[in-house]
């Protein structure tokens, strides 16, 4: 069996015990490679638990820049006895298995088609450190050292990272460097070289390495959010916590020391939604962030905000559903739940970012859209984007950018006698005007309610008033199509009758899959949906192809049903490609699924072609 040989294109997986401090060591490993100009794409696979259960860190090293999950492992760093067998099993034939051989293990515990790399980590640690905690922590640094030797990772880069991390804490710095070299030297002197190598390259460019949740939080800061009400839930908590951190940094008035923000950790998601509704009603840019279960709880308030037309922003970092589901796994399964949230006839605006950069952009834009459309705006991200570091275009901000506060009637306009009908469509776009509470002593006050009312916000049970309002809401929803981020179309080098639609975190795997398919001579045009309601260009794209694949990470083809529902397109044309087991979708999966389908379709079409001729 031939050992795997690869330069700047392989997958390393670390198997650890959670709470053992391995996370920072593993991240160090990934960053060092990044600093060598070689793109990496790491992913945490962690349990819903605080300490003691298995956790993995998968790093894809990819000079070509494929940031999706590849599938398959070339080098396993097996630091968790609990998962030994599974970890052995998962390795590719010819792959490398790095483990702690302090205690000898029977050969039955291994496979004979893999390459073993045993290192007495525990022994070395026990020899070197007295304190138990130190033994634990430095063991992690030590294997990073060993790997740096095996893979030719430049120590200089690692040490640079240390210096950045431990600025001012020299003692810590030194001990880490020491541990690093301890591991590195041992490997140099005792371990055979392997076929996987990292070679300095220039493939990273100006991209940044950041988690989607941090990016979204920063987007909220730049987008002008002043009120955040949230309730902790994985995988959204780190978004609210990042917002808090950024606000303490960038939103405290340097002169007076007062805060230009208010963050409430509410008692639950219902209260979070309620607070955001209250703040939005009162003219502040407000958001909440949550995950599936929170969306379910917010349903009543979402309906109120839709019907009473209150601007609010909800960032849903999706996880595996239904119910508590798989709290630490990723999915795109809240699409329907959000698009039609709450009882009665409702439709909501969804933004679908693909990576941290779009998490930043769309979160910032969400507040403009909420104010402009006076309705809930959902930003649908997921655990894969939100809680993993992802290489991404740098953030940009146009200094001259002003916030679009939408149609807010001022005291001056009211004073000037401008007619104010809170729920009246005066501009033909279905969007009414509003006033902030306290605007004018005698004009512009109105009573907001979740019940039916006439265009002047007076309670009404008349069918005509109700219909006027409901149809205006449809018109408003239609107006949203032009305001939301537009889809991105990519044409295949050769003209093709096939298309593919995808969105969100599926992007990197999709890009890679498309290239692979083209190498097999299978060509598809692609369209990445970035928001709902879908602009007509989505319908045009579908019309321009015989068959269109819709790739999503849920069981019930949720986005596909939105497409069918909103455009009245024949579903027969739309072939679902569904991946929903909780791990992020891979290029291999997409390639296989679409490839197979296209082969079949080819056959069919040729035969039907024959049939036609004969």
């Amino acid at each position, binding site marked *: 069996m031939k050992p795997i040989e690869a330069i700047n294109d392989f997958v390393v997986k670390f198997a650890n015990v959670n709470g053992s401090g391995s996370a920072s060591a593993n991240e160090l490993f990934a960053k060092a490679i990044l600093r060598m100009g070689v793109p990496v794409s790491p992913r945490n696979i962690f349990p819903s638990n605080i300490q003691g259960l298995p956790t993995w860190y998968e790093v894809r090293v990819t000079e070509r820049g494929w940031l999706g999950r590849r599938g398959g492992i070339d080098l396993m760093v097996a630091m968790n006895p609990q998962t030994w067998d599974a970890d052995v099993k998962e390795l590719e034939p010819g792959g490398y298995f790095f483990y702690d051989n302090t205690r000898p293990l029977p050969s039955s515990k291994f496979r004979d088609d893999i390459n073993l790399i045993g290192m007495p980590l525990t022994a070395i640690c026990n020899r070197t450190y007295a304190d138990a905690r130190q033994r634990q922590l430095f063991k992690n640094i030590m294997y990073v050292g060993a790997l740096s030797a095996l893979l030719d990772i430049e120590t200089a880069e690692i040490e640079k990272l240390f210096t950045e991390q431990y600025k001012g804490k020299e003692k810590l710095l030194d001990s880490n460097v020491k541990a690093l070299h301890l591991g590195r030297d041992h490997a140099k002197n005792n371990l055979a070289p392997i076929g996987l190598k990292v070679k300095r390259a220039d493939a990273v460019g100006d991209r940044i390495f950041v988690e989607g949740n941090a990016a979204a939080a920063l987007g909220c800061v730049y987008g002008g959010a002043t*009120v955040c009400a949230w309730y902790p839930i994985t995988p959204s908590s780190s978004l609210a916590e990042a917002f808090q951190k950024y606000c303490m940094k960038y939103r405290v008035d340097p002169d007076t020391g*007062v805060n230009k923000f208010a963050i409430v950790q509410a008692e639950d998601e219902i209260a979070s939604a309620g607070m955001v509704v209250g703040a939005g009603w009162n003219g502040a840019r407000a958001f909440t962030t949550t995950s599936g279960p929170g969306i379910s709880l917010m349903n009543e308030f979402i309906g109120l905000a839709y019907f009473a037309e209150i601007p609010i922003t909800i960032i849903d970092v999706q996880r595996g559903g239904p119910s508590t589901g798989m709290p630490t796994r990723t999915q795109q399964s809240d699409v329907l739940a959000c698009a039609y949230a709450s009882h009665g006839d409702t439709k909501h605006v969804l933004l679908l970012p693909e990576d941290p950069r779009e998490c930043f952009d769309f979160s910032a834009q969400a507040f403009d859209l909420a104010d402009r459309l006076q309705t809930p705006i959902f930003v649908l991200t997921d655990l894969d984007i939100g809680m993993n570091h992802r290489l991404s275009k740098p953030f940009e901000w146009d200094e001259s950018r002003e916030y679009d506060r939408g149609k807010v009637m001022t005291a001056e306009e009211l004073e000037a006698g401008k007619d104010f009908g809170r729920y009246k469509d005066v501009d033909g776009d279905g969007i009414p005007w509003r006033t902030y509470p306290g605007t004018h002593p005698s004009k512009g006050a109105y009573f907001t309610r979740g019940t039916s009312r006439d265009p002047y916000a007076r309670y009404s049970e008349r069918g005509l008033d109700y219909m006027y309002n409901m149809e205006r809401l449809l018109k408003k929803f239609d107006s949203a199509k032009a305001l939301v981020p537009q889809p991105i179309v990519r044409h295949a080098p050769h003209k093709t009758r096939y298309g593919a639609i995808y969105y969100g975190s599926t992007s990197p795997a999709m890009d890679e899959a498309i290239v692979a398919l083209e190498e097999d001579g299978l060509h598809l045009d692609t369209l990445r949906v970035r928001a709902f309601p879908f602009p007509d260009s989505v319908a045009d794209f579908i019309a321009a192809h015989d068959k269109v694949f819709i790739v999503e990470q849920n069981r019930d083809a949720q986005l596909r049903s939105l497409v069918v529902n909103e455009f009245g397109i024949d579903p027969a044309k739309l072939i679902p490609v569904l991946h929903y087991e909780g791990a992020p979708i891979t290029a291999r999966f997409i390639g296989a699924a679409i490839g197979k389908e296209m082969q079949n379709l080819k056959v069919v079409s040729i035969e039907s072609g024959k049939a036609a001729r004969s």
Partner: protein
Amino acid sequence: MTYIAKPKLHHPTLGCNARGFTRRDYEGKISTLCAGCGHDSISAAIIQACWELDIEPHRVAKLSGIGCSSKTPDYFLGQSHGFNTVHGRMPSVLTGANLANRELLYLGVSGDGDSASIGIGQFVHAIRRGVNMTYIVENNGVYGLTKGQFSATADLGSKSKKGVTNTDSPLDMVGLALQLGASFVARGFSGDKPQLVPIIKAAIKHKGASFIDVISPCVAFNNHPGSTKSYEYVREHNEAANRLDFIDVRAEIVVDYAEGELVDVTQHDGSVVRLRKLHASYDPHDRIAAMNYVHERQAKGEVVTGLLYVDPDAQDLHEHFNTSDVPLNRFDAKALSPGKAMLDKINASLR
């Protein structure tokens, strides 16, 4: 249909207050509540209190849940923005509104079903946070709007019009508010306007979470003899802990009766609540004593009314949060976005 506009509210003269507003300027739409509903009297008291305090009507935000009581904000302060939110969740909406603009006065109007049954969770947490608001529960022990089912404040063993008997022990909103650390706790009776008006005034002037439990009989479903929420019962068992006068900052204080039986509470803005003690035993500054007092009297079947507890130095949520005096809803992009240069720095830190 009762007309708040007429008899109940009007003083003989349509006098103007310091800001030149007449009571009419504090009224709202015509009430659609039942004739004789206690809630209408509370609306009248609110109007009176706001007029006497010279509040600018449009600087008040009225929030409510769902119910007959929660409809009332439509019937007073017609120049204020109002928000009839969803059932039981007004406290969170009010909290958010308050965070967005700390300059307005926040009036939360709710019912016992809205606040004690479905809403008890949000009630508890809004009080805990010290949201600066005046929170009035119009307490009739039933769900009026849905035709008379029991609320969580219904008497144990009382029988509904539909013949069902209530077996759950009732929630005592006042005891609860004290327990939760509300910094202003009072109870009033819709039938006793002279006592209620100054309570509302003091509550509005209080900085922090002011809670007023107002017994407000439902003539349609819970005014039968024996109901502790009926006019008759409360009139008979009303145990006023004190009578209070609210003295606004401007007015100088005229002492018009014997010393000793007076307690003056000076609030953060200098306004003074003057209590004429009716019970020596009782001290409005002592939370635990107040709880005791209320519990003991309650055990005797008495309905304790008056200002029961006040912490004049209370802090509100904005002070906790150290938020700017400039309302958050007033900042623009220049004030809120850290700018391009900072973003480039951030980018750099992420490489």
